[in-house]
């Protein structure tokens, strides 16, 4: 449904004629993010300033038009998909790094700043921004804050919410506010903490103040092969059980390793059941000592072909394999559906074996790449969209995998968000009272329901949720 011409005209007055796009062909570009489902917006508004964002939201509120803020569109849960139409509020033009304060070790950025650009700019001061999603070459800090994004190095450093000090936000009435800031304590409720990760459903983000960390003087990266995922998982627990929390602890299964090696020639052992990528950082004494301890623990747990990166370029190559793993999987099938679930770390072997069985049942190849230290798994269902009825199979398999995650005491998403993709599954882990508490928050911030509607909360009109069988029992068994 197109917007009323008066609304479009108002939007054009705010951002300029060229910055409102509403021709069907152009709209199609913004139909999707990096998830499966798409929906056309009625208009795309390219904002350049906080004032413009505020004015656009005001117009939307007045006319009861949905607004969905959008960064780079790399999200994996449909957070930026305009499922109820309305305005896609594109902030990628707001890409100024306003300030890097090397003394305070903070940066103030606009939401469209690309994650990696911030770390590159900070590097001039010997600093870096810790959360590093695999899409960091493209994804924006605004999107990261809206989704509370993670990344491989979050094992030690924490996720986005641990690094956002404050934000300038636009509420659903178009008013502009700062929440928190660079003082370590605020007075009153922690609105900033609630807004980070709220997936654009409570506010639009127009500035973000983040913490920067000192680049560690020494980094050691090690690759180890294991005969099975179980063995690798036990090695992970053993490392952490020794009191060592590495900066990153990543695992790839045999399917992934095969594809990555064929693509990157990074020297991954293709016969391995699983490959672990371990990284520690700190002062040289510390990394030398830690990597020696880790080497021993991995060796004691069936690890073989242990290899430490000897040069920065070797390290980069090892990481290129991990961060580019999803792309490399294109060698197996042209399409993929990347899932995200998180379980208590000790449950990883069990849940991965369940995931494998589900893949076999649906006759779909599944490749696993995951943040083993966090218990955050990413089963990747590979398929060819040209096969008849394949999406039905893919979605069925994905849903069963998530059920397995929940059965093992896990949560629906570790870092991708709920968005559109998983909103129907929320009752699997949250009771009506839990969801009601979240609804109260939503209603306080956005009583009119214009901010990114159709996300996070189950929408009965879209999907039927089956709370039965083993999953139902698992939920009942939860002590809370």
């Amino acid at each position: 449904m197109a917007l009323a011409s008066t609304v479009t005209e108002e939007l054009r007055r705010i951002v300029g004629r060229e910055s409102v796009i509403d021709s069907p062909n152009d709209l199609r570009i913004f139909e999707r993010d990096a998830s499966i489902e798409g929906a056309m917006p009625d208009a795309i508004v390219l904002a350049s300033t906080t004032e413009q964002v505020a004015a656009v939201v005001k117009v939307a509120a007045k006319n009861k038009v949905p607004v969905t803020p959008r960064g780079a569109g790399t999200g994996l849960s449909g957070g930026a998909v305009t499922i109820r139409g309305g305005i896609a509020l594109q902030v990628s033009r707001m890409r100024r790094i306003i300030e890097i304060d090397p003394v305070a070790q903070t940066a103030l950025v606009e939401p469209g700043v690309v994650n990696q650009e911030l770390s590159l700019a900070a590097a001039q001061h010997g600093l870096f921004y810790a959360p590093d999603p695999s899409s960091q070459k493209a994804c924006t800090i605004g999107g990261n804050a809206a989704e509370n994004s993670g990344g491989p190095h979050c094992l030690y450093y924490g996720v986005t919410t641990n690094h956002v000090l404050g934000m300038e936000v636009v509420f659903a009435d178009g008013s502009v506010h700062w929440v928190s800031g660079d003082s370590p304590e605020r007075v009153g409720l922690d609105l900033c903490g609630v807004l980070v990760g709220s997936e654009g459903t409570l506010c639009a983000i127009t500035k973000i103040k983040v913490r920067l960390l000192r680049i560690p003087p020494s980094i050691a990266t090690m690759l180890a092969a294991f005969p099975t995922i179980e063995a690798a998982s036990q090695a992970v627990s053993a490392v952490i059980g020794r009191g060592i929390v590495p900066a990153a602890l990543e695992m790839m299964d045999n399917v992934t390793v095969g594809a990555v090696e064929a693509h990157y020639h990074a020297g991954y052992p293709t016969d391995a059941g699983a490959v672990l990528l371990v990284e520690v950082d700190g002062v040289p004494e510390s990394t030398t000592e830690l990597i020696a301890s880790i080497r021993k623990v991995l060796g004691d747990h069936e690890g073989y072909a242990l290899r430490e990166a000897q040069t920065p370029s070797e390290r980069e190559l090892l990481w290129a394999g991990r961060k580019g793993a999803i792309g490399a999987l294109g060698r197996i099938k042209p399409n993929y559906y990347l899932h995200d679930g998180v379980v208590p770390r000790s449950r990883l072997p069990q849940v991965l074996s369940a995931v494998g069985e589900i893949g076999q049942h649906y006759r779909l190849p599944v490749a696993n790449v995951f943040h083993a230290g966090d218990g955050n798994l990413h089963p990747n269902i590979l398929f060819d969209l040209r096969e008849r009825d394949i999406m039905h199979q893919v979605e069925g398999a994905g849903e069963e995998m998530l059920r397995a995650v929940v059965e093992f005491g896990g949560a629906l998403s570790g870092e991708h968000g709920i968005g559109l993709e998983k909103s129907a599954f929320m009752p699997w882990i949250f009771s009506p009272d839990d969801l009601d508490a979240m609804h109260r928050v939503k209603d306080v911030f956005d009583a009119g329901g214009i901010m990114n509607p159709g996300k996070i909360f189950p929408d009965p009109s879209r999907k039927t949720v089956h709370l039965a069988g083993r999953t139902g029992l698992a939920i009942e068994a939860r002590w809370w």
Partner: protein
Amino acid sequence: MVVNDPHELRGKAVGSPGPLKKAPAVEKPRTAEELAQTLKDASASRSAVVPAGGGRARGMGGAPERCDVELHTTRLDRVLEHSQADMVVSVEAGIALEALQHELGKAGQFLPLDPFNSPGHTVGGLLATGWTGPLRLRFGSARDYLIGIRVALPDGSLASAGGRVVKNVSGYDLMKLHHGALGTLGVIVAASFKVFPKPLHDASVESEDGWAAAERALAAPVTPVALELFSDGRVLARFMGSPEAVKRTVGELGWAHASHSVWPEHAMRAPQSWGRIAVPRHDLRRILDSLPRGAEWWASPGVGIAHWSIDTDVDAVREVRAAVEAVHGSLVLMSAPEELVRAVGAWGTPPETLDVMRRLKQAFDPNGILNPGRFVY
């Protein structure tokens, strides 16, 4: 359960240093459901409820306008589940921090929370107040490792958020909503935490050389996990990590060795009257230099927080607060004589988002039964 024994009531009125019109009923529920029911009943009768854990932060905030029911969480003191392999622990809110640390210690783990006015804090109390200690420098506050929460709401419902996994973006982060809300939106009944392995090496050192020493230690290649500076120039630093790296750093600093007991001793600190100054960390020195002559304080310069033992008149407190707020910081009274709290207010200037906070309060506690008058709204 209601306790009416006057001996038990005496001296237990939490929150208000002044006399109350009528002794409040004391409730000590044994289950979360019982606690929720107490809130539901209080909502129905419009009774004011003052939740209490260990009572270590009873002086924080404005004096409650009313207190009909003192709601103690101390009988909710179980460890619900400690999964050593996952390094996750779930506890009821009334458990004492020391009891939790003891349980974790058996598995070589710990929660990096070391608040002042210890011992005796409950976990729920610490979450409600948001209090922290020296280890905040490395580990952040409980906000950073609180991964799940269960809260009894004034309508009698029990709402959970988060879970028992260390990384989770399923639904709104309501852990943040209740952390530091001083029990004004609901009463925390259970919480789950990401816990940490005891470090390979843990060393403490001290110096008498004040700011210069503190700044040098903070710039060391291995950052201290805690660094405390005192108004008399004493500096305490703690390093954790791989033995070689810690030994080298400590060696290069050349400070005197300090015993580990300095930390629990330091954590006992709680003057009669004290306030917490929080500012961007590069402003802290200037602010502390401007305190009245002879002022006693201790600070975490790497964080930007200082605790000031207030022994001065109302005007001086007002001046300090004005200076602190000028750099977007805050001066919050942790405990102070009633006259001072009344004269300057416990919290200072409310944030410009106060209206949203009030609406959140209204959404969760429409009858205003929880801690009326104690928080900023």
